[in-house]
């Protein structure tokens, strides 16, 4: 029982529920916050003492479910999810209300449940809990827009849940027990055939369920729609978990699935166009997140040990640097009230520390040497080169230049530099700065570890966490020079476009994306159908009313007081009619007898 309750998912979820239920006079705010931070720290410390294997198994409806399965793939996600819960909580202490960190830690617990699940039922359970708890983090903004976005978000998450459930039920039907990952792989024939080819309906449904949460093209717009509508802290929590456990699930179930390569390539390329013309800087980050997820999806699709290592490492790094960028923009949102590129600028004067930390995040996501993505994305790029995917490599290279353009330059430039907007505000609150420093330090550490290994022979603790052994040199001369050339000339293109006035100005606007299909077309269709139904109902009601009225009039005519069948008859006429009837009977009888 203790093993069950103290497992990372339940410890974080139940812990945050208990803290939320504790009365304020018993638990002062500072004590509550200390306990809240202690939850992920204690949970990670406990987890660290466990070996690979299955833990916390329990019986439910005659099935043995495994709450915790630790292996090299789940371990690294468990570590980063704990760190993300910790950093997100610290960040969110800028508001007095503890609702956000409590929900955030609960949501982190559900995400841990997904990555530790030893069977697909357990996975599904936490998949749904994560959907609902994360929707709360959108709604916590308490604006009309957030209410709508949260509802659409929850709707899309539920679609993913239903697809997953349908897939698991089909799978259950075929294997006859709680389907675990091993059964899943045996059934889909992954190990034999090196990919399942989607001949199996169950596998296809599960693939789509995972893909929706990993923001596959056309299934991505819930992310772009909802995350930027959340609060500063809400977006930080949101950016960490859902998409990354989807990446974990894809890496677990579909490594080497060749479809993923081109799905991923598309994901790296198309969002950067949208990011260039998007005005809401947190929405730029949401596009940027789809782009980064694309690199991870490509890695899973390539499926070699190097590529899977790259995908997982990049997921780890992305949680930190994307979190850092969301934190920096959240700080601007908190101090200024909006993050519209069109109305910001010159904030480096007011928020120098946030500016510096944002630049660390920008350098990290852009994969500058010494920063994190350089030590993670390179694994995916090299895996593509080793497998000789030339066109894929060109797309990824273009996307890399594009990342630097929209996330590396655009975010810090339009928020903190550009022309002076005249806005003067205070520096970010202390809790925000502490959290940003933690994320920035971790991002730089990931980038510097390989260098420390190369120069001083210090073992790289980050690479040691990866699912497969790493035999890869990040800091080769070629690699450092070519990557720097790509980025610096991309920067030159930006500067040239700015100075020549060719760069499109930031405009207050909305750009249509895939969500247009349900927010506009879908809405119109739904509205049309509803209007048609109302008209049909009214017409039917009118026709039925007319028929009923005429029936009533006919009945009135025949059965009413004056009607033939309804009026009172004289006894004399009745006698006459009876006599006539008897006479007719007599005639017929006589005729028949003859």
């Amino acid at each position, binding site marked *: 029982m203790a093993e069950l309750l103290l497992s990372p998912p339940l410890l974080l979820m139940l812990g945050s529920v208990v803290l939320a239920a504790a009365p304020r006079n018993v638990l002062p705010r500072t004590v509550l916050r200390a306990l809240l931070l202690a939850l992920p720290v204690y949970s990670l410390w406990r987890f660290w003492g466990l070996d690979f294997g299955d833990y916390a198994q329990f019986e439910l409806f005659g099935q043995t479910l495994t709450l915790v399965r630790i292996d090299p793939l789940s371990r690294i996600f468990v570590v980063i999810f704990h760190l993300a819960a910790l950093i997100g909580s610290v960040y969110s202490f800028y508001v007095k209300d503890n609702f956000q960190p409590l929900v955030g830690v609960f949501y982190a617990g559900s995400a841990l449940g997904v990555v530790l699940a030893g069977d697909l039922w357990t996975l599904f359970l936490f998949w749904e809990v994560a959907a609902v708890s994360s929707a709360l983090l959108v709604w916590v903004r308490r604006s009309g827009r957030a209410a709508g976005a949260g509802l659409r978000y929850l709707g899309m998450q539920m679609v993913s849940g239903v697809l997953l459930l349908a897939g698991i039920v089909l799978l259950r039907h075929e294997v006859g027990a709680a389907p675990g990952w091993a059964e899943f792989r045996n059934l889909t024939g992954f190990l034999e055939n090196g990919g399942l080819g989607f001949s199996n309906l169950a596998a296809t449904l599960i693939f789509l369920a995972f893909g929706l949460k990993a923001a596959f093209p056309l299934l991505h717009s819930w992310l772009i729609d909802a995350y930027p509508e959340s609060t500063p802290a809400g977006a930080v929590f949101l950016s960490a978990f859902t998409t990354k456990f989807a990446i974990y699930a894809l890496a677990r179930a579909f490594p080497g699935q060749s479809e993923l390569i081109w799905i991923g390539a598309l994901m790296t390329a198309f969002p950067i166009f949208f990011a260039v013309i998007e005005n809401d800087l947190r929405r730029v980050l949401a596009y940027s997140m789809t782009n980064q997820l694309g690199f991870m999806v490509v890695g899973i699709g390539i499926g070699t040990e190097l590529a899977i290592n790259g995908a997982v490492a990049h997921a780890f790094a992305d949680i930190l640097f994307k979190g850092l960028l969301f934190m920096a923009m959240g700080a601007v949102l908190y101090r200024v009230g909006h993050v519209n590129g069109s109305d910001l600028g010159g904030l480096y004067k007011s928020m120098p520390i946030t500016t510096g930390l944002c630049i660390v995040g920008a350098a990290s996501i852009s994969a500058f040497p010494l920063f994190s993505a350089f030590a993670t994305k390179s694994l995916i790029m090299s895996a593509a080169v080793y497998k000789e995917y*030339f066109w894929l490599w060109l797309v990824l290279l273009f996307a890399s230049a594009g990342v630097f353009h929209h996330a590396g330059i655009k975010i810090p430039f339009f928020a903190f530099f550009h022309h002076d907007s005249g806005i003067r505000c205070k520096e970010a609150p202390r809790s925000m700065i502490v959290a940003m420093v933690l994320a920035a330090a971790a991002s730089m550490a990931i980038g510097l570890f390989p260098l420390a290994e190369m120069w001083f022979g210090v073992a790289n603790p980050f690479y040691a966490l990866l699912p497969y052994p790493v035999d890869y040199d990040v800091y080769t001369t070629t690699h450092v020079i070519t990557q720097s050339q790509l980025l610096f000339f991309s920067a030159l293109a930006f500067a040239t476009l700015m100075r020549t006035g060719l760069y499109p100005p930031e405009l207050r606007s909305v750009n249509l994306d895939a969500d247009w299909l349900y927010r506009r077309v879908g809405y119109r269709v739904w509205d049309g159908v509803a209007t048609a139904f109302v008209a049909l109902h009214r017409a039917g009601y009118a026709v039925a009313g007319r028929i009923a009225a005429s029936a009533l009039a006919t009945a009135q005519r025949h059965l009413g007081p004056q009607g033939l069948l309804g009026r009172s008859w004289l006894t004399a006429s009745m006698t006459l009619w009876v006599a006539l009837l008897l006479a007719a009977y007599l005639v017929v009888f006589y005729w028949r007898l003859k």
Partner: protein
Amino acid sequence: MAHHDHGKHGGKSYWLDRKQNVAKVFYALIAVDVLWLAADFLYKKKAEFDAWGGWADGGFGFYPVYGFVGAFLLVLAAKQMRRVLMRSEDYYERRRDGGAS
């Protein structure tokens, strides 16, 4: 890029507020880029791909050209996308024009 509005808000003036300093940053960037381009002379690259006569990842100046042209075209293409995709900020808030059904 920078406006001449230093002092307008009563604050101190910053180095980047002066237009000629922004130009200095730009020229410094060009200088750095020339150095990175020159770096291609300093070492030997091994081409992994045969495509484009090995120029793609083995030849002189491929990454600089690709980075510059790629980013340049990205922005120009995105700018054209606005013609089709851009709507006013309250696009999704405005419901049916005809009012309630």
